């Protein structure tokens, strides 16, 4: 079925991503199956078999090979997509650095899953967050609709800055949950996302090469250039999102403030936790607690200015997250504290690692943690809360 008009469908998060990929018209999709990402690959395959999606769907022999194929295809000027999760992402690690250094605007969907050992299949953001220094832009989404919309936006941003982009949603909470999703019309997406046509590409007739050995000075300049491009991402992401909003009626920002009026405390969260936190904020507001939510959607580059603006005037923040960096604690907690460093009227920042390993964090639990934060003083470390 070619999406000729905007259509409302009941889709899982993973299937919503597959539709987004089809609408973005990548030419090459190298991918290797892994739970819980596999339904993305299956749906893309279904759409291809049905003749709806003209694409070179490559099944590589491993995730490492899949990413290598992505890089090469992207260097030739093809729009590229891939998807993975957990161990698969870790197996790609070497080539993730290569992809950003080679300035390939690949878009990848990562479905957050616990990393071993012990073995598990549960939602946990540590897999993607442990790749935060690889030079990939990272977006985190909280619903199937947002995943679909963000994949399309990701191409827009990635191809402007020539950096690869990872869109991330959590296993099962998002990947396998059915939600009503508005799938945009192909024409509208084509208007929003013009074909990828890089000026410089790998062409055997011209004889360019990538990835050559360089001296210290040149290496420094390459890395500095990646950093300079990264610095432009927040502004470009805001523009891309705003234009998406004008075209499709949905926009998210890179940092969202929810019910923050006169807030005495703000929950800071990303991914599916942000969706649950909305319910908790509503309940807390109903109980007379001036609580709000700051949702961090763009995690790399970390949107320092937008976050500082979002929390200005709020005396307390409580980060509730689903990841763990041994020796450092909750990763959003650490990133947030660094981003707020030196801020006038610095809020007190609590950090709770509550959903690690996929442990369900209910709205009621978020209410409890918010109350605990209101009634206690924060410590520098992130705190485990089962």
């Amino acid at each position, binding site marked *: 079925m070619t999406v000729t008009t905007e259509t409302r469908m009941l889709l899982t998060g993973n299937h919503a991503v597959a539709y987004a990929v089809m609408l973005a018209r990548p030419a090459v999709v190298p991918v290797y199956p892994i739970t819980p990402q596999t339904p993305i690959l299956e749906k893309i395959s279904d759409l291809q078999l049905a003749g709806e999606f003209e694409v070179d769907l490559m099944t590589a022999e491993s995730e490492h090979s899949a990413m290598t194929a992505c890089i090469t295809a992207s260097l030739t000027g093809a729009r590229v997509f891939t998807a993975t999760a957990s161990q698969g992402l870790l197996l790609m690690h070497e080539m993730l650095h290569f992809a950003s250094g080679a300035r390939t605007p690949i878009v990848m969907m990562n479905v957050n899953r616990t990393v071993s050992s012990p073995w598990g299949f549960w939602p946990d953001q540590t897999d993607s967050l442990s790749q935060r220094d690889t030079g990939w832009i990272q977006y985190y989404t909280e619903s199937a609709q947002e995943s679909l919309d963000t994949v399309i936006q990701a191409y827009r941003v990635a191809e402007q800055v020539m950096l690869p982009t990872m869109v991330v949603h959590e296993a099962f909470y998002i990947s396998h949950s059915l939600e009503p999703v508005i799938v945009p019309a192909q024409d509208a997406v084509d208007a929003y996302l013009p074909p990828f046509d890089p000026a410089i590409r790998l062409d055997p007739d011209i004889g360019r090469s990538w990835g050559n050995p360089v001296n210290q000075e040149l290496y420094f300049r390459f890395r500095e250039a990646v950093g300079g491009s990264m610095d432009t991402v927040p502004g470009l992401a805001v523009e891309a999102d705003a234009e998406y909003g004008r075209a499709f009626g949905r926009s998210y920002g890179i940092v969202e403030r929810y019910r923050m009026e006169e807030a005495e405390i703000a929950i800071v969260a990303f991914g599916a936790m942000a969706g649950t936190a909305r319910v908790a904020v509503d309940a807390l507001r109903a109980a007379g607690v001036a609580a709000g939510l700051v949702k961090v959607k763009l995690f790399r580059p970390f949107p320092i200015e937008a976050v500082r603006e979002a929390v200005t005037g709020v005396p307390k923040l409580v980060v509730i997250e689903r990841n763990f960096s041994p020796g450092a604690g909750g990763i959003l907690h650490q990133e947030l504290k660094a981003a707020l460093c030196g801020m006038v009227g610095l809020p007190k920042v609590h950090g709770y690692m509550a959903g690690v390993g996929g442990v369900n964090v209910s709205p009621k639990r978020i209410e409890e943690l918010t109350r605990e934060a209101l*009634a206690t003083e924060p410590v520098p470390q992130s705190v485990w809360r089962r």
Partner: protein
Amino acid sequence: MLDITAGRELVRRCIEGRPIDRSPVVLHLGPYAARLQQSSYQQVCADPTMLANSLHSAQRLFGCDGLIVLMDSTLEAEACGCDVAWHDDEPEVVSHPLAGVEPGAHSLAVEGVENQGRLAVALEAARRLNTVAGKEVALFPAVTGPVTLASHLRGPSFWADLDESPDLAYQTLEVAGQVMVRVARQYLDAGFEQLLVSDPLLGRVDATHYPQIAAVLRTLWNVADFYDAHVLLQTDVSDDSRLEGLLGLGAAGLIADGHTEADRLASGGDGHSCRIATGVSAALIEGDQGDMERVLSPLRAAGGRSGPLVACCTIPRSTPPANVHNALRILRG
């Protein structure tokens, strides 16, 4: 020797009549906690953060086994539409929505009462305290009992009704009971393991009315049973002849304000499922420390057997903190 370090466990054992090493001590620190924070009670009652922090700080200062979260009958009254005036930082009910009207089931909007006024603040502060201190300390959120609330809602007419038109008084009690159960459910839903029904005026009611009061309270006992929670009843028992009747109202325990004679209270509790607790008077905690030693020392002899639980429901704001520490020292031996 038992090794019970958490006040929460000590209090629970005491209420359940199981062996304990010493009498647990439960304090009501509401307005006094505000004073320790150098704030007014009116001020802290308007802000759940200030209220929760003041109570938590005071609890940590004294290290009591149990804490009555906020015993203030004007909270429910205000939430039900009574006007409250403040004099010397003490709230006083000055209007009565059921005065001069038929106190039927629809005469008061009970639904949503928990979200009104300072009651919503007290609920929120209690939830926070339960989150940060509920594992160690026995927290007793206080709900206002039917007699005191009925008196607030109908004013002096309630007492006249009791003598002249008891059916009208019982209708008012019924409405007050609905409010009490609704507020209690908020606390029980928040995970509290025990409640205090504070009904200072109950002790003034003639025992002939106890069957109707017992019927109103029974709903709460049933709800608390569902949550596996204990409910204590607190009132002023200045008339000894009413003690037996009060013990028969079905609460898990009775805090008899003003009674500190341990032997008599212990014997009064015999033969009832209701555990009797003793209330340390405001005059005692504020007054001469020699008197306090004389009166409270016998209470610590409870070691090795059940009860009594010692509650201090009113600590006058002028009480030096050293007096409270001294009371705890005497009771703990």
